[in-house]
C-alpha cells in the first residue's frame, strides 16, 4: 500500500528525515516510536503534504501512485488520512459543513455524485457514536472550544467519516486520559480491516496495549534504526531509548 524508499526531507536547509525506508501492506498496523526530535511528526507531515517541508530525495509510492506529486487534498482523496497531533480550531466552520464539504469534494474527485443529506446525516449519527462524540459537537465549529480529548476523538470521527485506506495517527494518545484513550483505540480498532492500514506514531507504549501493532519501528535521527514486533515496544518502555543509541554507536 505504502512504500517509502530512502526518503530525505527537511525544512529550510535543515535535514530531518535522512534516508527512511518503510513498507506498509494492507491489513497491517505499524507503530513508530522514538525519542523527541527523531523526525516522527515530520514524517507524518511529509506524507500528508505540508508545504513547509521540502523533500530532497527518495520516493513515496501510495497505492501505485507517486504520493509526493499530489496536493494534500489529492492525497486525502486517494485515501490517506492524518490524525493531527494538534488539531486546528476553525471558528465559524461547523463540523457538519466541514465534513460534508470534505466528503463531497472527495466524491467529486472520484467522479461520484454528492452524498444525499439523508445518507450523510445517518452516517454522522452512526460514526459519531463510535467515538462517543456528543451530537452537539457535530454542530459546533471545528474543534473550537473542544477539550484535548474531544479534539482527538473528533480526529477519529473524521477518520471514520472519510474511510481512508491508510491512517496516520500522529501522537493521538498524547495528553489523553485513559478513558479517552480507550475510546480513541476502540474507534481505530473498529475501523480496522484487511483493506486498510495504520501507522501509529507514539511516545508511549500505553497506546499499543489498546491498538496492537503488527510491527514496531524505532525512529532515531531521521531513520528507522530498529524494527520488531510488539515486544519491542515493551522493551522500549522498560529500558528507554539509550540502549538503542548505544547499539548504534557501537555499530559505527
Amino acid at each position, binding site marked *: 500500500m505504502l512504500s517509502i524508499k530512502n526518503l530525505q526531507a527537511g525544512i529550510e536547509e535543515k535535514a530531518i528525515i535522512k534516508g527512511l525506508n518503510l513498507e506498509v501492506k494492507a491489513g497491517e498496523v505499524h507503530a513508530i516510536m522514538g525519542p523527541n526530535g527523531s523526525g516522527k511528526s515530520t514524517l507524518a507531515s511529509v506524507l500528508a503534504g505540508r508545504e513547509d517541508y521540502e523533500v530532497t530525495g527518495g520516493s513515496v509510492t501510495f497505492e501505485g501512485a507517486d504520493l509526493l506529486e499530489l496536493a494534500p487534498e489529492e492525497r486525502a482523496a486517494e485515501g490517506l488520512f492524518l490524525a493531527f497531533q494538534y488539531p*486546528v480550531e476553525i471558528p465559524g*466552520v461547523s463540523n457538519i459543513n466541514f465534513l460534508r464539504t470534505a466528503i463531497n*469534494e472527495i466524491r467529486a474527485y472520484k467522479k461520484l455524485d454528492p452524498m444525499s443529506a439523508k445518507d450523510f446525516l445517518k452516517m454522522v449519527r452512526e460514526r459519531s457514536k463510535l467515538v462517543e462524540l456528543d451530537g452537539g459537537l457535530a454542530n459546533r465549529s471545528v474543534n473550537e472550544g473542544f477539550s484535548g480529548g474531544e479534539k482527538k476523538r473528533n480526529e477519529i470521527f473524521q477518520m471514520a467519516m472519510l474511510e481512508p485506506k491508510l491512517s496516520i495517527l500522529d501522537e493521538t494518545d498524547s495528553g489523553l486520559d485513559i478513558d479517552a484513550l480507550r475510546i480513541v483505540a476502540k474507534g481505530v480498532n473498529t475501523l480496522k480491516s484487511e483493506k486498510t492500514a495504520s501507522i501509529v506514531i507514539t511516545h508511549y507504549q500505553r497506546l499499543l496495549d489498546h491498538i496492537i501493532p503488527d510491527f514496531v519501528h524505532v525512529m532515531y535521527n531521521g531513520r528507522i534504526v530498529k524494527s520488531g514486533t510488539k515486544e519491542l515496544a515493551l522493551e522500549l518502555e522498560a529500558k528507554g531509548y539509550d540502549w538503542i543509541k548505544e547499539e548504534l554507536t557501537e555499530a559505527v
Partner: protein
Amino acid sequence: MSITTEAMSVKDKLRKRLATSTAISGKIQGLQETAFAALENQELPTTRDEYWKYTRITPFLKKDFIPGQPETTVDPISYQIEGLDCYSLVFVNGVYSEKLSDLPSGDTLQLRPFSEMTVAEIAAQKNHLGQLAEFETQIFTALNTAYATDGSFVSLKAGTVLEKPLHLVYVQIGNQTGIQTRNLLVFETNSQATIIESHQSLGGVEALTNTVSEIVVAANANIDHYLLQYIGDNSAYVGSTNVIQENDSQYSLTTLTLRGRMVRNNTNVQVNGTGCFTQLNGIYLTKGKQHVDNHTLVDHLQQHCNSSELYKGIMDEQSTGVFNGKVFVRQAAQKTNAFQSNQNILLSDDATVNSKPELEIYADDVKCSHGSTTGQLDEEAIYYLRTRGIGEAAARRLMVQAFVSDVVNQIKVEPLRQKIEQHIAHRYEGLS
C-alpha cells in the same frame, strides 16, 4: 492655497448641479435657509479633516451630475430580494415610482414618499426633520437638507407592528446621475418594524448618491434595519443614518456593503433613554480600487443600556477599508455595557485597512471593550481542511464564509440572509 480654491469650485459646481426648487426642507419654515447658511460656512472635506482622514472624496464630486429622471423600464426582478414578501417604496434615480411600489394602508401607519405629501403634512414633521441629522458641521448633510426633493417617510403610531418587512429601494440607472434622497422614519412607542434599505446600481456609471436618514425610535419600540449597498463600480455614495433611541427601545442596523467604488457610511446613534439595546453590525467586501469607509458613533447618554458593534471586512486586490467607531459613555450613563469590534481580512498584499476603534468614558460603573484585528486567512486551517480532501479554493471559500458568519447568522430576514450567503459563496468561489 490652490487646493482650497479648487475645493471651493467643486463645491459650487456640485451645489449648482444638485440645486432644486422643490426641496423638502423648503416646506418647513426656516429649515432650507439654515441649510443654505450651513453650506456657505463649510467646505468639502479633505484628508486634513480628521473625520475624512482616510477617505479622499472630492475626486468623486467633480462630474456634471444630473439629478435623475424617473426610468420607466425598471424590471422589479432586478432589485427585489428573492423570496422576500415585503412592502416596498421604490425610487428610481431618486424619484418615487408609484407603479413599482407596494404599500399597505391603515390608520396607524404611513409609508409614503415625501413627494406625495402636502406642505402641511411635511411641516408637521418639523420636530424631527433636520433635527437629528447634524448639518452645521456635515457638509453632505447640509447639501442634502438644502436640496433633497424626495425620499421615504415612515410613521408607525404607538403599538403598530409592521407585519411584513418594508423594503426601501433606491435604484440608480444612467450615467452621472446625482441622487439626493431624504428619509424620515418615526417609530412611536411599542411599534415594531423591519426595514431593508437597499441602494442598488442597475447599470450606469459615475453616479453620486448623497442620502440622509433620520430615525426616531420611541420608548419600547423594536426596529431592525438593514442597509444593503450594491453601488456601481464607478460610482460614489455618501450616506448618513441618524438615530435617536428612547427608553427600552431596540435598534439594530446591519450595513452590508457588497459593491461600490467609493462608499462612506456615517452612522450616528444617540442612546437617549434607559434600558436600550443598540446593535450595529457590518460586512464590507471590496476589490479592485474600491474604498469603503464606515464611521460609527454610539452616544450613551443614559444608564442601563447595552450596545454591540461588530464590523467585518474582507479586502482584496488594491482596495481599502476604513473603520472608525466611536463610543461615548456620558457621565449619567452608568451601568452601560458597550462592546465594539472591527475585524479585517486582507486577501492581497496591496489591500489596506485603516481601523480606529475609540472609546470615551465619563461614567465610572460601566463595562466597555473595543478591539480591532487585521490579518490574512489562517494558512494552518487551510492546510487542515486540505488534508481532509477539500481543495484549496474551496478551503479558502469556507474560511471566508466562516469569517463573516457571525454577522451573517444574525440577519433575521431569511431571504436576505440567503442572498448574502449566495453572494459570498459565488464571489469567493475561485480564491487561490
